[in-house]
């Protein structure tokens, strides 16, 4: 009954997409993130038209006579790699790889995590118990080790890498959704639904899910960043995306021993990874603030 609360509530659910976008663009950090992401998506989509060279072409004049890669120049903007391929073109194509894996792996992880989280959170009981014990088990798995072993068993390919990452990444999502679903399930408006005789399916679909959508969007966005990093790490360890398909991680993996002599080969893809991961992190954070005032300022 205290009237000390300040009536500055903003409207979380109205306004449509346009205004969310406007609000995101108004904040320098999220505007930066959006621009980076859009640029990269653009580069990935338009890759065939904007790549100055065939990214897989091991050009004869792409290596010095001793076989050393060429530094950035007007001919090769970001230099060439150890096989004489144009690094800029490979980075652009690598954007495709990173984004595809980011979206694919994260999509699967989100689907899996949300399903497990909602099921365990809403039904509780032994189903919830078993599901959450299983997520506990997955949490205790050293994620990278698991990914490496999985990648070693299955012959690596883009899809497998995405699946492996999804297998590792769904756990966090499940945890978050589980906790939220549990607290939602105990809220009065859900009690009202039960009292009205609404079916479980209806309660989940019409009342629980809409409340989770924002968390799913936010964590899904943040998850893309983890996914990009994990793909890069797997590729860096040589168990990720298969050559000659470029991914930022395997570009660094292929060239890392040259970091002292040809730093551009590690520096540029490194920057690309950091930029993309950073942008998705910033965007996720901004979305959290914009979409869900309850979470404002947390995490």
């Amino acid at each position: 009954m205290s009237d000390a609360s300040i009536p500055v509530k903003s409207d979380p659910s109205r306004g449509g997409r346009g205004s969310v976008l406007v609000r995101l663009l108004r904040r320098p950090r999220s505007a930066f993130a959006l621009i980076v992401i859009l640029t990269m998506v653009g580069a990935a989509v338009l890759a065939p038209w904007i790549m100055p060279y065939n990214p897989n072409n091991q050009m004869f004049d792409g290596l010095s006579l001793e076989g050393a890669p060429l530094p950035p120049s007007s001919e090769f903007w970001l230099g060439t790699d150890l096989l004489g391929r144009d690094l800029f073109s490979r980075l652009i194509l690598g954007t495709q790889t990173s984004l595809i894996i980011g979206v694919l792996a994260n999509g699967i992880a989100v689907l899996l995590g949300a399903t497990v989280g909602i099921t365990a959170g809403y039904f509780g009981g032994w189903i919830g118990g078993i599901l959450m014990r299983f997520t506990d088990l997955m949490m205790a798995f050293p994620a990278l080790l698991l990914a490496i072993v999985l990648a070693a068993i299955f012959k690596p390919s883009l899809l497998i890498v995405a699946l492996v990452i999804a297998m590792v990444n769904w756990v966090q999502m499940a945890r978050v959704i589980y906790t939220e679903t549990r607290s939602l399930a105990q809220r009065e408006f859900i009690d009202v639904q039960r009292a009205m005789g609404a079916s479980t399916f209806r309660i989940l679909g019409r009342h629980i899910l809409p409340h989770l959508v924002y968390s799913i969007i936010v964590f899904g966005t943040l998850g893309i960043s983890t996914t990009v990093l994990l793909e890069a790490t797997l590729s860096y360890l040589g168990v990720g995306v298969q050559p000659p398909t470029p991914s930022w991680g395997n570009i660094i993996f292929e060239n890392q021993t040259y970091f002292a002599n040809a730093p551009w080969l590690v520096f540029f893809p490194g920057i690309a990874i950091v930029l993309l991961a950073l942008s998705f992190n910033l965007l996720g954070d901004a979305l959290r603030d914009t979409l869900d005032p309850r979470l404002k300022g947390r995490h």
Partner: protein
Amino acid sequence: MWAYVIRRLGESLLILLGISLVTFALLYLVPADPARQIAGRSATAETVANIRAQLGLDQPFHIQYLRYLGNLLQGDLGRSYLQRTEVSELIAARMPATLLLMLAAIVVELIIGLTIGAVAALKRNSAVDQSLMVFSFVTISAPQFVVGILLLYVFAVQLGWFPIGGYGTFGHLVLPAITIGLLGTGWYSRMMRSSMIDVLAQDYVRTARAKGLGRLRIILRHVAPNAILPIIAMIGIDIGLFMSGIVVVESVFGWPGIGQLAWQAIQRVDIPIIMGVTLVSACFIVLGNLLADLIAPLVDPRIKLK
């Protein structure tokens, strides 16, 4: 309390059992044939079969697993196929290095992370806050192999301030500890910031102000202890992050810990070592979670272990 600890230990054992089963099954599916690797290129099929039988690899899966479990219960992690050494000995030899690294990384991330988080929360929405948060975002967005290579290049190769990889002195420890710690720093600072902001809005902080207490005293006695509570729960997650990080960081810096051991073993499909390292790091994570749960009531009297 003790009933709780014992029950949690029991649950942890179940989780470890599950992990051992899953890992064992996964490794069972790995196509490489250990007997072949041991026998070498000049061996006859007969010799290989002989070795396979000696190792029990000709048994069905469940027998192999139960045998492994039986040995495990006696503290026997088996013998490395390729190094021909007790896995427990190999892990024990590398554990001090990993523990040292872990300790140093935790110190780095706690000191830097909590400070950054606290400062950002107190200066909320200021330019300081903004730049600290961007920094923390960068640290969680930078892959550890990139950070590691960069630090190595700048501070060891170019500036020569630290040794180029290896193990032994304090100087060796600095760069890998920072590399691993930075990731945690990002998470901790963000956690700390949001937790601080939450706590700053609490009624008891208003009470503390109403008491006429000084700002520093309020922050140290009323805000910080409460803000740290949710962060304690991070310990388990943090150890998980750490365990994933060491594979990369130890290989970048040539740090003789279990991450390096694991990576070498994975390359050679040395199954007993992979099993051993997985179980040991799972133990760490599980114990970390348990530890977090046990510390929580010490710091927060409201929490009762049940």
